[in-house]
């Protein structure tokens, strides 16, 4: 029984990263020999200190950066253009300040030639899913930081992506807002059944959200530990006070510190 749990290879990977390395023009090696399978329905966190290449890994998956070694494969992809199945959320909300929430969420559809009228139901639905129905006519400056991030998530979801890539999306938010958005993100993932790759430097956030945590180390960027989170996907505030949560946090924290170079401990 345990053997089956240990090796959930029955489902084909959504994305396979094989020996991916990235060396920038200035000679910095951001990533070296990265091997990673992301399976459908997973919530994978890339946890690591700044400069460990976790964002670079995410950008390579999205096709926003080219690896200098290795390759990214999409074994399970149905459509030819797998980019159509990716939603991306940046650390900043990255909204167009001159456009309303509706127009911001419409953008990915608009770029695919969907008219505003045709996109309206989908846009409205996406805004409702992030709890922002009624705020469609607001401009970004009229929204709080958390609400802007919600619009950004609604925009990423408007194409109904199979894979949602998030690059420290909640790092700039206050803790109360972050907790709320964490819960909403878990709910959205359950509703959509999408796969999430989540870059973070917060041990607690990664344990709370993930079904699997990959701890990364810097110079060169690589994966040093893999921590499966054997907890039900339906999580609430109560999860934060369980023994499992505490153990996992200690485990992840230990892996993170073990991964850091000696000079970073001072």
């Amino acid at each position, binding site marked *: 029984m345990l053997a089956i749990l240990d090796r959930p290879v029955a489902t084909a990977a959504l994305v396979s990263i094989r020996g991916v390395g990235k060396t920038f023009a200035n000679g910095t090696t951001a990533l070296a020999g990265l091997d990673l399978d992301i399976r459908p329905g997973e919530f994978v966190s890339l946890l690591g200190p700044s400069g460990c290449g976790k964002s670079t890994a995410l950008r390579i998956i*999205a*096709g*926003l950066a080219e690896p200098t070694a290795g390759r990214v494969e999409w074994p399970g992809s149905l459509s030819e*253009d797998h*980019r*159509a199945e*990716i939603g*991306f959320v*940046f650390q*900043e909300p*990255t909204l*167009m*300040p*001159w*456009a*309303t929430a*509706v127009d911001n969420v419409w*953008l*990915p559809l*608009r*770029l*695919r030639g969907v008219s*505003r009228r045709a996109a309206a139901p989908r846009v*409205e639905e996406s*805004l*409702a899913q*992030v*709890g*922002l*129905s*009624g*705020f*469609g*006519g*607001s*401009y*970004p*400056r*009229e*929204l*709080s*930081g*958390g*609400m802007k991030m*919600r619009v950004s998530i609604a925009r990423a979801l408007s*194409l109904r992506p199979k894979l949602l890539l998030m690059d420290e999306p909640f790092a700039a938010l206050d803790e*109360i*807002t972050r907790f*709320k*958005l964490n819960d*909403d993100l878990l709910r959205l993932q359950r509703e959509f059944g999408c796969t999430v790759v989540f870059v973070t430097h917060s041990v607690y956030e990664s344990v709370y959200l993930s079904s699997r945590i990959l701890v990364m180390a810097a110079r060169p960027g690589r994966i040093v530990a893999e921590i499966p989170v054997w907890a039900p996907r339906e999580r609430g505030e109560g999860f934060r006070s369980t023994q499992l949560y505490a153990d996992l946090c200690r485990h992840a924290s230990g892996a993170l510190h073990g991964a850091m170079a000696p000079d970073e401990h001072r």
Partner: protein
Amino acid sequence: MSLPRASSTVRAPVDAVPATPATNGGWRGVSFDVNRILRVGLPIVVFAASLWWWEHYVETRHVPPYVLPAPSVIWATLLKDWPILLGSLLVTLKTTFLGLLLAVFGGVTLAVLLSLSRLVEYSLYPYAVVLQVTPVVAISPLLLIYLPQDLAVLACAWIVAFFPVLSNTTLGLQSVDRNLLELFDLYGATRPKGAPAFVGRSLSRVKALWYLRRPAALPYFLAGLKVAGGLSLIGAVVAEIAAGSAGAGSGLAYRIMESQFRLNIPRLFAALALLAATGVIIFLALSALSHLLLRRWHESALKQER
């Protein structure tokens, strides 16, 4: 467009605190009104006081009108010479607006070309700078030799108004959030089936220009336009003055030169006042246009609430 407000079944997120609308009334509202009265009223008071002092000074010291005419005399001259001055004003206005229009057209077109192609930028931008840093007064005699007078004057107005539009629009087209550009790369790089890759790339570049760079550049362009409006008037006046002694001009600057030769100083002042008023009106009109276009979203158009 606006969507219906949230139905009661949808729970609002706890962080969903909308910006509170400005409250009118109360002492805050009153203090805002006082501030507004001061902002409009004080310049008027200063203006009236200077005019009174000027009038008083000329009267008590018996300054002759060919040295310094009193404001009342200038006003009377303005009314008396109105037909001549109005004709000249219209000539100068025509040059100014035509120069500005051509500057906007040329500046924006070149800025778009520069933003699309690095080769164009490298080839042309240095010459735009040369054109800008060479004083227009020094170029105008040459232009007057090569071009008919009205065209030479127009060319001067165009040259000085062109650069602020070009440089500001270029800066604006480049000041796009890098992440937004990446988002366009991710979502917008679709190409027609079977088309080669470069078609997709150009298409995505044009899309980014239209959906992203154009609105991002608007505040910069409008700031450039505000500067260009004033400069276009200056360019027209400088060229008219350079041409004035040589040709048969009829703009306001020409009137100023003519009045100086004839020692008709009250008319000189009247023409000067008209020029200043024209400059102020152009500035106010362009500021209003800028406010109208940016008031919904841009920081510069927002009132600070305390």
